[in-house]
Every structure is written in structure tokens, then in C-alpha cells.
């Protein structure tokens, strides 16, 4: 291994490929991943489940997490295994981490199933560094003590020293899907830390150091003003019970404007704030579900460009599911940045738009990408929905 190879810091890595077997909707799915990816497909094709594979890896290594808890939180092995799985009982996630120049710096593979007490058990855990095997389980010690197969080495600091970068990288993955109602009424998700649905969104802001927070809020106000022109200022305040609130100052016919707290923000304002906060923080991969929700189409149109701007600064990888025609209308979206999910009886198949001949043909002929994708992923017979409620 050359010194140059060793010099790659985990913060510069991104997911360059994922391979799933028997994971939820996917009996077998492999796709390369660019720095910015959009996942498209009909409802219930498994877009969230696909993103969940990345979250699963993060849950394994996160504080208070671990393999067993990550499986349990998802309802156990039998809930995770693809319905279409037949011969192969193992569920497998295999990811490659690399850079633009070096596609495979690390490779991590985890295959698991359950024992006869329905407890998750590891069938295989493998780590490769530039193709060299760093970890290959089960090993001799696992054979002598099968209980060891209830924990990954990835989650254990005392044994992951040789591939700590993989653990650090997975832990840096963030998932964000702000539910405005939860931000407004945080009581509904009491006690959760880093709640991806925004239950502790304001607390997350409060936990950031004042300097970073103020700088970020200023940038967010500047960006938000495009969509919410009346907004002049954002600041964090604390009420008498010590609960943090995000106050926004709105322009008003009165000279000094009016202050409002998060409980009064619109769904769109809250979601856009959440989106901007999420893309501004951290450097690890960011998973987003339908970032277009509640936003005006004119705002949505600029989301892909915003992602690119963020990436130009921080290099951060962004993986997002979407149904939005406006979002996909951006001419700068490459065919290898779009993953098309197609459900069938044998599970959902996954293909890079660049590798689907029909898409490439139509795209080369000048048909706009959103039109092609909408026709491809729209449900058949959807007109029947218009008849719902009619007398049968």
C-alpha cells in the first residue's frame, strides 16, 4: 500500500456503490453512486427502504445503537427480509467507499439472518481496504464463541481499529425528513436525540455552538428570503422553562416588524429551514426524502443547483428520493445521478438511468428527463382513482 493511498481521510469519502440482497423490497440490487443522487420510482417501490440501508449502517455505529438494536428497531430480521427472498436466507448490505479518483478505498459487507430464537445473527462481515482483506468473519474465535456473532466488529471500538475510518464515515451519515407538525409540537417525540423527523430540530440548533449557529442562521435567512421575502431575521431564544425556540422576524406594516416562533411557521417555511440546516451542517452523506414536499415549485426547481453549490464547498454526498417534475427538470442532472426503481413480483429492481436504453434513446432525442421518468414510473390505470367514490 502506498503512502498516497493511506492519506485519504474518511471525511473525503463517499458511498461509490451499494449492493443489496434480500433487503426489504430488493432481492438483488446494485448501483454505483455519484456525489449527488436522485431516486425515482412509483409509490411503494421502496425508495425509503433503499435509503434505509444507509441509515442501517449508521445506526449500527451510532452512540446507543449497535447491530442488534438497528435490526430490532426495524421490527426484526423477518421484517427486513425481502418477501421475494427464496433460496438465500441471508440479508446482505455491501457498500464501497471511495473518492472521484479512487472508486474503492474501502469495502464493507454485512450479511445476517436470525437464529431459531429469532435473534439477529451475523453470517458474514468483511472489510476490504484497496482490495486487501482487513476483516473476514466468522473467524476462529467466532466459531468457539457463537455469541460473538450478535455484534458487528464495525460497532466495537476495541476491534475496529484497522478500519475505524469505515465506522466514522458510516456514523457521519445523516437522515433528514422534517415533519412540520413534530417541530411545532415537540412533545410528540419526547426524549429523542437527532430525531430525523424534526422532533428535536430546534434543540439540534440550540446544541450547535453560538458562533456556528449564528453564521448558519444568517446564511439560512439569506437563502430563505427568496422563498419567504417577509423574513428578516432568525434567532434562538429560550422560554421560562428553558425550552429553546426559533424566532423569526417578519416585515410588517409596523415599523419594527413582528416576531413569530416556530409554532406559527408554515409547513413550507419549516421544511425549507430544515432542508437548509441539514445541507449546511456536517460533511457526511445526507439522506433526504422528497425534499420538495410543501415547497412551491419555483423553490423546488433550484434544489438540485443548491445541492451542487453545497457540494462545491463541502464535497458532501446527497442522496434524495423525489417525485418532483420541477426538481428533475434541471438540465444539469446527469443520467448517472438518477436511479430508477421498478417494482415487480420478484421485488423491486434498481437501475441507473444511464444504463436503461429506452431512457437514453429518448433523452438523446431531446425529450426532457422529467417527462421520460414520469411516464416510466407513473402507476398504470391511475385514472381509476378518479372513479373512487362513484357508485359501483
Amino acid at each position, binding site marked *: 500500500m502506498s503512502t498516497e493511498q493511506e492519506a485519504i481521510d474518511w471525511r473525503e469519502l463517499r458511498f461509490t456503490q451499494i449492493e443489496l440482497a434480500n433487503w426489504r423490497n430488493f432481492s438483488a440490487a446494485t448501483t454505483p453512486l*455519484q456525489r*449527488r443522487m436522485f431516486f425515482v420510482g412509483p409509490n411503494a417501490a421502496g425508495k425509503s427502504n433503499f435509503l434505509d440501508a444507509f441509515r442501517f449502517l449508521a445506526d449500527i455505529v451510532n452512540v446507543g445503537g449497535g447491530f442488534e438494536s438497528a435490526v430490532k428497531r426495524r421490527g426484526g430480521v423477518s421484517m427486513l427480509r425481502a418477501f421475494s427472498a427464496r433460496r438465500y436466507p441471508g440479508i446482505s448490505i455491501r457498500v464501497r467507499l471511495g473518492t472521484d479518483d479512487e472508486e474503492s478505498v474501502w469495502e464493507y459487507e454485512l450479511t445476517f439472518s436470525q437464529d431459531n430464537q429469532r435473534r439477529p445473527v451475523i453470517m458474514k462481515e468483511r472489510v476490504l481496504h484497496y482490495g486487501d482483506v482487513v476483516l473476514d468473519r466468522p473467524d476462529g474465535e467466532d466459531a468457539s464463541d457463537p455469541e460473538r456473532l450478535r455484534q458487528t466488529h464495525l460497532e466495537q471500538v476495541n476491534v475496529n481499529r484497522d478500519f475505524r475510518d469505515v465506522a466514522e464515515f458510516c456514523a457521519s451519515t445523516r437522515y433528514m425528513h422534517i415533519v412540520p407538525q413534530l417541530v411545532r409540537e415537540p412533545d410528540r417525540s419526547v426524549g429523542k436525540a437527532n430525531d430525523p423527523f424534526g422532533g428535536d430540530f430546534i434543540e439540534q440548533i440550540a446544541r450547535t455552538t453560538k458562533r456556528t449557529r449564528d453564521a448558519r442562521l444568517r446564511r439560512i435567512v439569506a437563502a430563505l428570503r427568496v422563498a419567504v421575502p417577509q423574513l428578516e431575521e432568525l434567532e434562538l431564544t429560550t422560554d421560562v422553562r428553558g425550552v429553546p425556540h426559533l424566532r423569526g422576524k417578519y416585515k410588517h406594516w409596523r415599523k419594527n416588524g413582528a416576531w413569530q416562533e416556530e409554532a406559527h411557521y408554515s409547513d413550507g417555511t419549516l421544511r425549507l429551514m430544515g432542508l437548509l440546516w441539514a445541507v449546511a451542517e456536517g460533511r457526511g452523506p445526507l439522506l433526504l426524502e422528497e425534499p420538495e414536499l410543501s415547497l412551491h415549485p419555483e423553490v423546488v*426547481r*433550484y434544489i*438540485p*443547483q443548491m445541492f*451542487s*453549490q453545497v457540494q*462545491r464547498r463541502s464535497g458532501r454526498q446527497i442522496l434524495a428520493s423525489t417525485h418532483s417534475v420541477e426538481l428533475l*427538470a*434541471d*438540465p*444539469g*442532472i*446527469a*443520467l*448517472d*445521478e438518477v436511479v430508477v426503481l421498478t417494482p415487480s413480483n420478484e421485488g423491486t429492481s434498481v437501475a441507473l*438511468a*444511464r444504463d436503461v436504453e429506452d431512457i*437514453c434513446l429518448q*433523452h438523446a432525442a*431531446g*425529450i*426532457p428527463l*422529467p*417527462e421520460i421518468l414520469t411516464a416510466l414510473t407513473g402507476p398504470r390505470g391511475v385514472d381509476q382513482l378518479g372513479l373512487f367514490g362513484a357508485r359501483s
Partner: protein
Amino acid sequence: MTIFNICVEGESDVGAVASAIQYAGGSVGGIFGRGGKSKVLARLEAYNQAAERMPWAVVVDLDHDFDDAGKASDAWLGSSGAAPLMAFGIAVREVESWLIADREALSDYLGVSIDRITEQPDSLDDPKQYLVNLARHSRLRTIRESLVPRKGSGASVGPLYASEIRRFGEGRLDVARACQRSASLREFVASVEAVVLRGA
């Protein structure tokens, strides 16, 4: 001030078209289209009808659909032609030619020598590709990364093409200078001026 609703094929066209309208004494109200040429042409009749009563500016790329803009205009607008408050522009062969026509600003923005940039933008076969190829030779990494697609990506432009080109058109394009080299831009500016005069 005459306020125009505008309709263009794509986001990247907005800047150049808005600057041309401002230069001709108008300003931009609503922005329509941006879903490709077929959508603009499909609604052209409706926009033209609306332009009987209020100012509209629609710009379509000639591409290789017709030999010249006159034939295209006849075919697209029909026998009755443009409504009194319609400024109909046909970019030869794409709106990018109008940007390329301001060689000085473009060379400065792209970080390429001015000698690389053609003096006859309306004669270009594929102006968008030409512009991307110019960016490929840029001295500036940010320009290359923003405007040039990654190899093998299947995209014809880079990830920030739409917003960067729009911004260039809005903020740096000198319409007077560009008009000297692009006849199709001159014609569009003249038709906007005519509507401004009628609307006044």
C-alpha cells in the same frame, strides 16, 4: 414601465431574455415555460392570444427545425402572426448564441482567451455545446466543474449550468454589445421595443 410575462425553453435562457427586455425598456413579470421547447410551442397560441391584451415575450430556439427564422415564425405563429403585444423571438440557433455574442464579457467570465470565441454566433451549429466546450478550456476550476458535464455522466451540461448561465445573462451580458454580433438578438430587441412603444 411595460411589464412582460416571459416564456422560455429553459432556466438558463431567463437571464439573457430578461436583460434584452430591460435593454429595450421593459421589465419582467411572470416567468413561464422552462419545460422544454415542445411545451412552449404547444402553448404558443394561448400566449399569443393573451398578448392581444397584455405584453408577452416568448423566445424559442430555431435549432435545426427550419432554414431561417422567418419560415419558423410563419410555421409556429400561423398566418395571423404575432399579436400586437407579443414580442416573439427566435434565437439562431439557440439562446446561448446571444450570450456568446458578447465575447468580451464571456471571455472574462469563462476565463478563456477572447480569440477562442467566434464573431459569428448565429452561424454556430450547436451553440450550447460550443459554450460548454469553451468552458472546458477555462482557466478556472469552478467554471469547469459548474458548466462541463462529467465524462460518462450522460448529461450534456454541468451541474450548475442553469443557474450560472442565467446569472451571467442577468448580470454580465452587455446587450448592446451582443446585438452587434447577433442578428437574431437584434430582431428580438426590436420586437420588444415595438411592444413597449405600443404599450406606452
